[in-house]
């Protein structure tokens, strides 16, 4: 009898606690989802923060690489700088986050970075079910295979029963599987989480081949002890359109990224370079005037100042300049423009009109 008394006495305690838990649950709901999900665009968050958080690889010379001077450089990095220039008129208002292939999507979804400019292939599933949205392609790439020159491997079929190194969390892993399955070639995949471990293993000779995007292979090859001992096979395994990405469901912020990239391409199309920028500012061409914001108010449409494109060109240059600076003939990579040329020059780069 007394035992029940005790239990009854403890009941109010329990109720008060449960009531309390309901409250605490509500408070965490506001606390836990503060990453731009309450109708507030990421754009506003970045504006008030005063700098852009940009996710890069940091391991790829020519795309994003931490130089000896402690600064990031490369094509992907310049895209970040262009966005920062459009936002703040200051290309250095960027904080870089080094992300590996596996971390990158989570970092974007959770709002750790505002934009992912990290040689990421635009695929349907990533666009639709991973919760991200892609800006225009900044580099058209394809998957390739690198082998040692003296290995006698000439094509995919020579890779039978060979070990092939690759990195986990990439489209490369799946493309390789598809291609080999289709050709009925057996091989041994040796897959690493860390890109450096993958290349180290290839260099040590554990793998007879390594597969990745061709640009990445070229870029990493320039860092190998004897770059000329390695060749990249002619087979192209896949389409790899590399594009910056933002979190899904935020069209205001996507527009800023999207049109910053288009501004780079359009500037090259219009022949506006960093040098010629000053003289062209007074041009009579209405197209150039609109683009540079001396006429019309295109910039306001995406929440920026009208001269956002002018800021980009002033600080970073147009797409062609960025390409030459990071990947062109004066760099160790020496990549021909090929598909990454303007549509007027046989490439695939095409910007919708700034109108």
């Amino acid at each position, binding site marked *: 009898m007394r035992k029940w008394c005790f239990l009854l006495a403890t009941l109010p305690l329990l109720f008060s606690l449960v009531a309390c838990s309901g409250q605490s649950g509500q408070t965490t709901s506001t606390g836990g989802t503060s990453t731009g999900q309450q109708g507030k665009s990421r754009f506003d968050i970045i504006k008030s923060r005063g700098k852009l958080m940009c996710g890069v690889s940091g391991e790829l010379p020519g795309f994003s690489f931490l130089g000896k001077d402690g600064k990031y450089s490369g094509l992907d990095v310049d895209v970040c700088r262009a966005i920062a220039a459009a936002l703040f008129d200051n290309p250095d208002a960027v904080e870089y986050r080094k992300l590996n292939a596996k971390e990158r999507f989570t970092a974007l979804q959770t709002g750790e970075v505002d934009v992912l400019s990290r040689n990421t292939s635009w695929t349907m599933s990533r666009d639709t079910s991973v919760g991200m949205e892609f800006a225009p392609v900044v580099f058209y790439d394809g998957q390739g295979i690198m082998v040692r020159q003296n290995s006698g491997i000439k094509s995919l079929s020579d890779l039978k029963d060979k070990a092939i190194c690759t990195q986990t969390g990439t489209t490369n892993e799946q493309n390789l599987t598809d291609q080999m399955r289709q050709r009925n070639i057996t091989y041994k995949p040796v*897959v690493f989480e860390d890109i450096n471990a993958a290349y180290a293993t290839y260099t040590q*000779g*554990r793998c007879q081949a390594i597969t990745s995007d061709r640009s990445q292979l070229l870029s990493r090859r320039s860092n190998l002890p004897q770059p000329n001992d390695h060749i990249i096979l002619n087979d192209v395994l896949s389409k790899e359109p590399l594009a910056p990405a933002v979190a899904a469901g935020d069209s205001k912020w996507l527009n800023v990224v999207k049109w910053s990239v288009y501004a780079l391409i359009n500037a090259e199309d219009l022949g506006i370079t960093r040098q010629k920028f000053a003289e062209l500012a007074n041009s009579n061409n209405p197209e150039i005037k609109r683009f540079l914001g001396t006429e019309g108010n295109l910039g306001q449409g995406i929440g920026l100042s009208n001269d956002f494109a002018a800021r980009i060109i002033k600080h970073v240059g147009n797409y062609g300049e960025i390409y030459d600076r990071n990947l062109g003939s004066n760099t160790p990579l020496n990549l021909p423009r090929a598909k990454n040329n303007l549509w007027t020059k046989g490439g695939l780069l095409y910007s919708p009109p700034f109108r």
Partner: protein
Amino acid sequence: MAPLWRERRFWRIASQVLAVCIVVIVVMVLWGNLNRNLLTLGIKLGFDFLGSQASFDIGETSIQYKASDPYSRALLVGLVNSLQIVVAGLILTTIVGISAGVARLSDNWLVRHLALIYVETFRNTPLLLQLFFWYFVIFIARQEQEVTKLFGAIYLTNRGAIFPWFKVTSATSVWLVFITAGAIAVVLLWRWRPGHRVLVAISTGIAMVLFLWLVTKRGPFALDVPKVFNHSQIKGGILLSPEFSALLMGLTFYTGAFIAEIVRGGIQSVPKGQWEAAKSLGLKPGLMLRLVIFPQALRVIIPPLTSQYLNLAKNSSLAIAIGYPDFYFVASTTFNQTGRAVEVMLLIMLTYLTVSLAISLVMNLLNRTVQLK
């Protein structure tokens, strides 16, 4: 009657109720938070994805697997790979650990100090670093066409180490049936017949082997010795990949260093009087250790040993760093391709929990048999 708050029984029950409440609330808050966040991200929980096609290859498969199999199959392959490492690792690390632990107490200065150096270096450097060391410096640091021959039958290449291995013959099944039956018979005889048990067991065994040999005219297994042809191609034997070997060695020697200390502590915990008593009985050092000291030391050794075994099982998930496709590796690829973070993490947690609990269970049973009753 004393007031309620002065009653000890009230506080006893109240504190338990409070503890349960706190647990329930924490779980509720976490679960609610998860659901809300997933809702805002527009993600639904579910394990349907396990049935869809994995479409990635796995480097080492002990069971049949192809890229068109579902994710569940890929995960199973990973689990089998994990278990292989864990089982082989547990056996080897026990041997290494006990040897090093005993060596630490050796009267021989050199042996004692070598064991000391081993324990202190392996115990005091990070496991990940050791794995890289084994992988890059020991196992893949050889030229592509280079083949090293060890003891006449073991080959080292940059594809891995090749050992002679057993091959199943037509008589294997017969042998297995008879050996199992024989083992049961031996156990029964052991219980039932006092007296010359050892003699009976051994003679029965010999008689049975002779009988089987006569009937089947071959051994239970044929030895599959690897052979070189075309300079660098090797046929036969079992191939242990560099990834597997490096992980196995890394886990074995890292955990072994800890086990060595546990064994040393266990042996030293046996009172000096026991040593003296054993000595006064005229036992040789080996016998002394085996009959008197070790059975007593085991009581102290087994509980911390269990923790080390569990550590080994969990540390095996570092395989991903050196490209061995264990469970964690396959699961994280699955997570990456499907974007199912919550479900995959749950699966990983459940799997490691199950493996760890199984090890605990076995070790607790073992512990019970050595404890004083």
